[in-house]
């Protein structure tokens, strides 16, 4: 103000005022210096605050982006899992899902369409599984690229971009590669898959680390290079996280008993136990068959608890005397009924597994040869059958029993070590002293749409090795198929009939079931025994993939 006054009034008006001017000039200079010093101090404080806030802001954003990178990687892994699961089923137009009256979806979320039938993904051209099995490095795949930098087939899926709305980056990404775990998928077992997913999130702001020194070892943010040895190849700083999951196939024989709508084990003489044919001499006989003294306790009994036609929820009932279950029991939110004191493992209520319908041989688009007459012993050699081109026979009405197959004191002898499929549109009965003899090396698949009775001394699979015998029930959810094993009858194999009712009346002295059962309802009475072969958990058709191993690579490299 005084400087301004002097400028506007350069000539002193009075002597007194003139004499006061030098003093005023000195005071003005002091004020200016004081103001400048004050401003400087304030500016330094402001700058310091700004720098600190900027560092904090950057550190927080980097931390948030680092978290987002894991989300991106997880999304990528789930994307690959979806791609693996997709070819496990297909829509069967011959099944009218809307007419299905067997189940209710009220208790089961995520129940997919009921006109989905099971297919073998290895036989679906264009599927991820098919390409991984058939193609070689450098080949062209519709699923992605197959780099030549590896000696084995590894498919890199198209980069997954994930839009993001909000602060920070507007787009995350995930690069996913899938390959088969070595030494899986051999000898009839299912292939395991390795999924590696790299989630990337660009970092906002300058390419500089936050001020928290300990963060760097954990988060390993990439500012100039992505660590591939290509020099400073990044134009944008990024947070990167890598996860690897192993997808384990869930086969149709993964549980001893799987009742879609419930299981009734009617008394304490019902015994469910297990053995492992892959460990002969230890948990089974030398030839891989069951041995009571070497039995194990891995026979799990599970249910989806899906409501029956009456609307009541499914349940596992062990009876008031308590059936013996040498394994775990799992339900879908419904408590187990009856005496559980003979259950060796845990009882939980958190289980659900989607069950597609069995394969429909009528819509496979393959040629079926007429099944030989069933009047006497029948011999079928499987030697020329392969997994991709098995021998196929259909009971088509040219035999004595129309579209049904009835064995009464005669035998069906299957020989050789190849693959064979038998479609029985009608029913199947094996009674008296009849038997279906299957050698250990043959892989046999039955498709039976009608009623099944194995009674008397009837035997289905005299080798009692269940791993290579699969018994598919009716694919239509509206069917009323029943499957019975009674008397001294033996059955060895995997029954996959989620639309059918299975009854076992073990009234005889020697009959038993070896293998596993998936059915709509399962009823065991009398002295029924089921010996579950743990090898079935890795054999047979695949209905799902489950994460068996999860790892995030955060290794301290150097």
């Amino acid at each position, binding site marked *: 103000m005084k400087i301004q006054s002097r400028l506007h009034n350069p000539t002193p008006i009075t002597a007194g005022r003139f004499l006061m001017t030098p003093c005023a000039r000195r005071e003005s200079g002091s004020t200016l210096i004081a103001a400048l010093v004050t401003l400087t101090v304030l500016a330094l*404080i402001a700058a*310091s605050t700004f720098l600190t806030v900027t560092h904090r802001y950057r550190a927080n954003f980097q931390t948030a982006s680092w978290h987002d990178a894991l989300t991106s990687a997880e999304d990528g892994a789930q994307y690959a899992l979806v791609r693996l699961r997709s070819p496990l089923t297909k829509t069967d137009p011959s099944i009218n899902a809307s007419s299905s009256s067997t189940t209710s979806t009220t208790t089961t979320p995520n129940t997919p369409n009921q006109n989905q039938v099971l297919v073998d993904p290895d036989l679906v051209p264009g599927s991820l599984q098919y390409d991984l099995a058939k193609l070689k490095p450098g080949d062209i795949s519709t699923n992605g690229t197959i780099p030549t930098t590896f000696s084995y087939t590894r498919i890199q899926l198209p980069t997954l971009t994930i839009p993001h709305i909000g602060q920070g980056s507007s787009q995350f990404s995930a690069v996913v590669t899938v390959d088969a775990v070595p*030494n899986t998928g051999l000898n009839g077992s299912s292939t395991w898959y390795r999924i590696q997913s790299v989630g990337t999130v660009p970092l906002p702001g300058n390419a500089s680390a936050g001020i928290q020194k300990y963060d760097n070892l954990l*988060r390993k943010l990439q500012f100039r290079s992505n660590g591939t040895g290509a020099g400073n190849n990044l134009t944008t700083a990024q947070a990167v996280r890598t996860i*690897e999951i192993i997808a384990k196939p869930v086969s149709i024989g993964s549980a001893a008993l799987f009742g879609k709508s419930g299981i009734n084990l009617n008394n304490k003489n019902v015994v469910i136990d297990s053995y492992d044919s892959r460990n002969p001499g230890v948990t089974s006989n030398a030839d891989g068959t069951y041995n009571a003294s070497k039995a194990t306790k891995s026979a799990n009994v599970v249910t989806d608890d899906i409501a029956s036609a009456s609307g009541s929820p499914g349940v596992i009932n062990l009876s008031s005397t308590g059936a013996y279950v040498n394994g775990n029991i799992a339900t879908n939110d419904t408590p187990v009924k009856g005496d559980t004191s003979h259950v060796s493992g845990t009882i939980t*209520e*958190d289980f659900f597994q989607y069950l597609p319908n069995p394969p429909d041989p009528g819509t496979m688009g393959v040629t079926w040869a007429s099944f030989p007459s069933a009047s006497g012993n029948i011999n079928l050699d499987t030697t020329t059958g392969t997994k991709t081109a098995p021998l196929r026979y259909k009971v088509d009405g040219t035999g004595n029993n129309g579209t049904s197959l009835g064995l009464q004191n005669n035998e069906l002898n299957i020989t050789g070590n190849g693959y064979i499929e038998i479609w029985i549109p009608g029913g199947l009965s094996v009674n008296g002293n009849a038997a279906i003899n299957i050698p250990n090396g043959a892989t046999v698949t039955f498709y039976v749409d009608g009623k099944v009775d194995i009674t008397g001394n009837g035997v289905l699979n005299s080798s009692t090795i269940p791993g290579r015998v699969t018994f598919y029930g009716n694919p239509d959810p509206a069917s009323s198929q029943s499957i019975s094993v009674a008397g001294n009858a033996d059955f060895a194999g995997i029954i996959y009939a989620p639309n059918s009712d299975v009854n076992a009346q073990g009234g005889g002295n020697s009959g038993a079931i070896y293998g596993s059962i998936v059915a709509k309802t399962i009823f065991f009475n009398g002295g029924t025994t089921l010996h579950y072969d743990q090898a079935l958990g890795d054999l047979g058709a695949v209905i799902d993939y489950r994460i*068996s191993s999860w790892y995030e*690579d955060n290794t301290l490299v150097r």
Partner: protein
Amino acid sequence: MKMRTSISRHQSAMTIIEMIVATGVFSVAMAAMIGASIALQTSFSATDDYFTAEGDQLRVMDYFNTDLRRALAVQKDSNTVSYTPPGGAATTYSYAIGDSKATKYFTMVIPNYRDLTDRTLTTSPLTVNMPKVSSDNKVDYGQPIVVCYYLSGSSLYRAEVNPNLPSSDTRNNPRSIADNVSDFNVSDPSFVKNPLTTQTFVQVSATFAPKYSRKGWAAALSSNTDSRVGTTLGSKVQLRNVF
């Protein structure tokens, strides 16, 4: 002239009263300014410490979560952990803590994912240990890596011991991951329903002694005082490989 002299004398000096008043005003002003500066500095420092503490807390939780998610077996309150390798028998893995001040432990084993034995590589080793599937249908990455957390004084340490590396390898050395930590806990919470069959969850928490509390923060480092209330962080983590 008289007038000029008179005026000059009047202007060039101050009375003792004026000096006292001026000095008083100046002192009050300076005291206020210094006080404000100290308060500002203290507040700024406290804010800085607050964010540092927050960063520490996030980092510790992130370390715990990252390791627990991929753990094969976890043992609280111990520097040993029992784990049954795929197809093998139960084995005890331990971390030899060389820190005499260590007071609390928390140990786990994680998959041995990368082959780190070749240090001549100038970039991150691309070699990974290819997983195998054992006869009992479990994924096997080979002999696992032992990870141990322990508290030494007010610092939380993490050690990651790779069995394929020589013990003298610096990558096996423990590293401090946060300061001002007074405690941490790992618990296996009970569930309303029976334990889950396919997943297991654990609850993990860490308690920090905040510097930004102007009262009693020093005591908080060594005793359980109210100044730590509100600085315990926890999370529930799914052990994705333990089932």
